[in-house]
Each structure stands twice: as C-alpha cells, then as structure tokens.
C-alpha cells in the first residue's frame, strides 16, 4: 500500500480529492460517478458513509445522506462499495464517518473490514484527539492511517498535538462553519496552511467551502498538499437526479478543469 506521504510526495503538486457520499443517490449510480471521477483525474478519494444526523454537514451533504439512506445504503454495503472502487483502481481512500456507526459495528472490526476493502485512512467527524485513543490504536493495528481536523480556532499548542496524532494528513477546515458551497474562498486558508507547514511535516489538505477551480488554485498556491472538494460536486448529483449521463459528465468535466489548474 502506498502511504499518503508517498502519494503526495510523488505528485509534486497539490492532490485533487473529491468527496462523495457513498450510495448517493443509489449504489450503482454512485459507483459509476466515483469511477468517472477517478477516470477524470482524482488523486485521492474522500468517501462518507451516510448518517441520519450529520452535524458537521450543511444542507447539500445532509440531502445526499438522506438520498443514500433512502436508497438502502448500509454500513456493510458501504464497505462493499469501497471494495468495488479499489477493485476498479488502486487509489487511496480516506473515509469520513460519524462515530456512532463505527461504534455500533465494533470499532476494531470496522477498521479491519475497511482496511480489507482497500481503505487508507479514517476521519471520525465527531471524535477529537482528546478521545482519539478510541480509534488511533485500533486504526494502527488495522494498518490504517489517521486523519484529524484543524480549524481556524485551533490553538497552536493544540494544532501541534493534533499533528502528532495524525499519520495520514491534516484535514484543514478553511472556515468556521459546516460543509457547503461558498462564493469566495476563506481568507484564513493562507495563514492556516503557512502556520501548519511550520508546525509539522504531515501532509496538509484543505476542505470545506472549496467550490471552483480558482479556489483550488489558490489553495495549492498557499502550499497545501491537497484540495478536498465536497458540496460543489455533491450538488451536481442533486441537480441531475433525472439525467445520470449529465450528472456523470458534469462531474467529470469539473474534475478535469480543477485538475488542469493544479497541474
């Protein structure tokens, strides 16, 4: 397995990391969309297991979670989905999940099964480093990397402790708020990335509110190792529920555009 460090190291540019809710709007459509995102140039994937009460997510991803759950997505099927993706292409997959789903499955078993499906890292949205022992040990055991968030209100002292617990990449939240599209990029990106780069040599990726190729370009220019784009892409699924062809092509075109500004 290639580690994130190797992946980011080899690229010599910022990695493009699209986010999808697994099973949105249904298992098969979701799988084709993810495959076409890979074909269009995604370097890493960030995939979320849908949850009934996603408190870190804005309306776009909330709706995606509901679509996926209504179409019958389950944790077990999500693991199967990941296997189908990694069978298609060996690509690093970071998982975004709410803690209760992991907890009910059994943390150790969940992480082992996720690893077996081809997963690379796990980010538990509602688990901070204070309780990271509940996940860090079992993740290491399973051979997975850990990802934690740093936000504009994280103190330097805490950011250092977070970086120490992080083996995969730091998920830098570029603004105060939940996921969702934003018209302009937060002005906190540049200072945050600059600061983190002096604190740690763990790769630093930026997400939340990244909505255009220009945003991606600015994040790369700020020195980030990766750009995570979620709601903007998930919205393209929402907007094209009746035309799956168009859904896929819009997402492919968008990813190609972002990729071209990063290269």
């Amino acid at each position: 397995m290639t580690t994130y460090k190797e992946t980011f190291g080899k690229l010599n540019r910022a990695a493009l990391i699209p986010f999808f809710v697994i099973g949105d709007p249904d298992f098969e459509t979701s799988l084709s969309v993810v495959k076409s995102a890979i074909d269009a140039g995604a370097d890493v994937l960030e995939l979320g297991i849908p949850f009934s009460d996603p408190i870190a997510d804005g309306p776009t991803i909330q709706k995606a979670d509901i679509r996926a759950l209504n179409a019958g997505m389950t944790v077990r099927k999500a693991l199967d989905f990941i296997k189908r993706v990694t069978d298609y292409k060996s690509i690093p997959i970071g998982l975004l999940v709410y803690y209760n789903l992991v907890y009910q499955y059994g943390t150790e078993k969940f992480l082992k099964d996720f690893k077996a499906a081809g997963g690379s890292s796990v980010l538990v949205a509602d688990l901070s480093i204070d309780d990271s022992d509940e996940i860090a040990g079992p993740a290491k055991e399973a051979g997975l990397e850990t990802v934690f968030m740093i936000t504009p209100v994280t103190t330097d002292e805490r950011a250092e402790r977070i970086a120490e617990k992080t083996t995969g990449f730091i998920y830098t939240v570029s603004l105060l708020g939940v996921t969702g599209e934003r018209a302009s990029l937060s002005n906190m990106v540049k200072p945050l990335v600059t600061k983190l780069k002096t604190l740690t040599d763990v790769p630093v990726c930026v997400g939340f509110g990244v909505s255009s190729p220009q945003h991606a370009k600015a994040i790369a220019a700020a020195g980030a190792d990766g750009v995570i784009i979620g709601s903007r892409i998930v919205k393209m699924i929402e907007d094209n529920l009746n035309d799956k062809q168009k859904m896929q092509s819009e997402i492919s075109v968008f990813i190609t555009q972002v990729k071209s500004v990063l290269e």
Partner: protein
Amino acid sequence: MENNGRFGDFGGFYVPEVLIPALEEIERAFYRFKGDPKFVAQLDELYTRYAGRPTPLYFAKRFSEYVGFKVYVKREDLLHGGAHKVNNTLGQGLLAKFMGKTKLIAETGAGQHGLATAMIGALFGMQTKIFMGTVDTRRQSVNVHKMKLCGAEVIPVAGGTGTLKDAINEALRYWTANVIDTFYLFGSVCGPHPYPTVVKHFQMPIGTEARKQCIEQIGKPPDMVVACVGGGSNAIGIFSGFFDDKKVRLIGVEAGGEGVQTGKHCATLLEGKIGVFHGSRSYLLQSDEGQIYETHSVSAGLDYPAVGPEHCFLKDTQRAEYVTADDEDVLDAFEIFTKSEGILPALESAHALAFLISQKGKLPKDTVAVINLSGRGDKDVGIVEEHRPVQ
C-alpha cells in the same frame, strides 16, 4: 478540557474539532464562576425575585386519597415561564453574561426551554435565536409566539424528523459557524461535556429545596422521588437532593408513547442501546447499524432519542429505577390530577403522575412520594383537547 465529563463510561465530549475551544471556554468559565460570590449572589437574587424560587412543596390531599398513599408535589410549574427550564437558562444566561457573550442560541422541543431562553435573552438584552423542529412549531405554536414576543428569532428546522434532535443538529451547525461571539444555551443534562454538569448544577436547587421542605413538613426524607425523563434535567435536579439518602427510591419515568412494543416511543434508557450521539455516550434509540431513530410521544418535551449520561450511570449502578408511561395513561393522569387538585400539569410531568397512578393500591398508605411537577399544562391544553375532547 479540565475534566473528562464522564459518568462511569457515559458522557464525554464527542464533537467536531471546531467546537472544542468553545466547550473549553464554557467549562473554564463554569468552574471559575460557579462559586464566585458575585455570581452566586446575582443568581440567587434572580432565582428569588425573577423566577420565583423557592417553589412550594405541596401536599396533594385529594390526589393522595385517589392513589392511596401520600403525594407531595414540588411545584416547579409555578416558576416564571411555567417550567423548571428557567433555573437553567438563568444560570447559563448569567454565565454567558459573565463571559462577555452577547448572543444566545438554543434548541427547543416543547418550546419551554426556547421560551425560558428567550425570556433571559430579553432580560439580559442579548440577541437570541431559537431552533425548533417544524413538527414542534406546529404542536407548540403558542410557545413560538411567546418566544417572538420576547424578541427572539425562532428558526424552524424542517430537516430530519422535524423534532428536538433536528433542532439540536441545526443549533450545533449554526454554532460551528458562530462560535466566537455566540453562547449555546443547552436545555438539558445531555450533549457534550460540560453541559450535563452545568445544567445539573443549575437544576440542583429543586432537590436541595425539596429535601429541606420534606424535613420541615414531614420530618424525614420521602420513600420515593419521581420525575419524568426527557433529556433528564428536571429529574437530575430533584434526584440530586436525595443521592445520599440511600433508602429513597429515585424513579425516572420515560415516555412510552404508543407503547414500547409498538416501537413508537422514547423509552431511551429502557429500550435503547449504548452509542454516541450529540457529543455524549449514552443509551440511544437507534438501528442495529447506529442510525438514530425517530421518537414518539404525546409530549414534545420528551421526544428525544438520547438521554443524559448521568441517568445512564444511575441506571447501570441501580441507584435509580426507570419505568415508562404510555400516552393514554398520561392523558388519564392529566385529567385525574387536574380534576382532583385544580392544577394543570405539563404532559411531560403527567408521565410522573401516571407512574403514581399505576401504583394505586400497591403501596402501603403511609408511603410518601415526592413528584417533581416540572411544568404547567397550559401549553398542552390544545393537544389534550384533540385527544380527549371535553364534553
């Protein structure tokens, strides 16, 4: 955090990283001010002159005759705003003021906590936003109106099941974007640390007073203390006065809804499985995979799929007992109590009364029960009318 916020293995603070500094700030302020003479003096004065503390402990003679044992009622329904909620909103509101915050947000189910927050927003001149599920704004429209009259903005939450849990989701999302100047005034003894500890602290006067009043009026502690449990704040408030009286039975009554066997209920402690939700490890009503269930109760204030971590601990250590009361029995209790005492109980509190009625004829007649009448029933008259039209 200074403290891990655990009650046994329950509790904790399972939240996205962005909320950690805000919770730390509240924890720090709470430990700093809770014993501060100036803070204590101001809060005492507000409790006495604004809210109406101490509340009476009232011997319900005719209701006692009906059930066949002695029932004393802790009259939290007489507080300003009509429920125990004001104890907590005054406490946290004053804490927010001491912290220099100028904006309040809160979630609400029945509208009682929302109203109690809106009142305090007006009192302290703070900008206030209340998040409320659309199912609840419909069934508690009078409270929505009252909140607006106090100057609060009521934000209807249509997502999810349109009830309390969705209001909390949305309040948390809003807080995430506004952590710097906004104080989240949480309504019950659940959610992430430090809320279970903070809310308990501000509800403890119920128990302290009740115990003192028992000694004055009866000469001894009661045999049992009964309270309804939604998130669990009124119950923890009164239970806490009797924790050390090991012989006093502490009984929490959860909403049985249409009956636990129907699946349409919110008997979290009795029917739930341990999980992590809204920042805390507790019993939860959830699917095998951990998706959170919709809950059902005739009383909006109990409609919540999680429960305070300290109640989980009290259950597992068997210091407290938990039972359910179904909607129909609760409506009966509402009618029986109102007819025998001329006091309209909140439907939430009527759950505790329904338990007492279920014990009719089963307890020795010198048994002394104290029940926490957490709120008054004016807000529920429309719902009762719907279910039981007055002839």
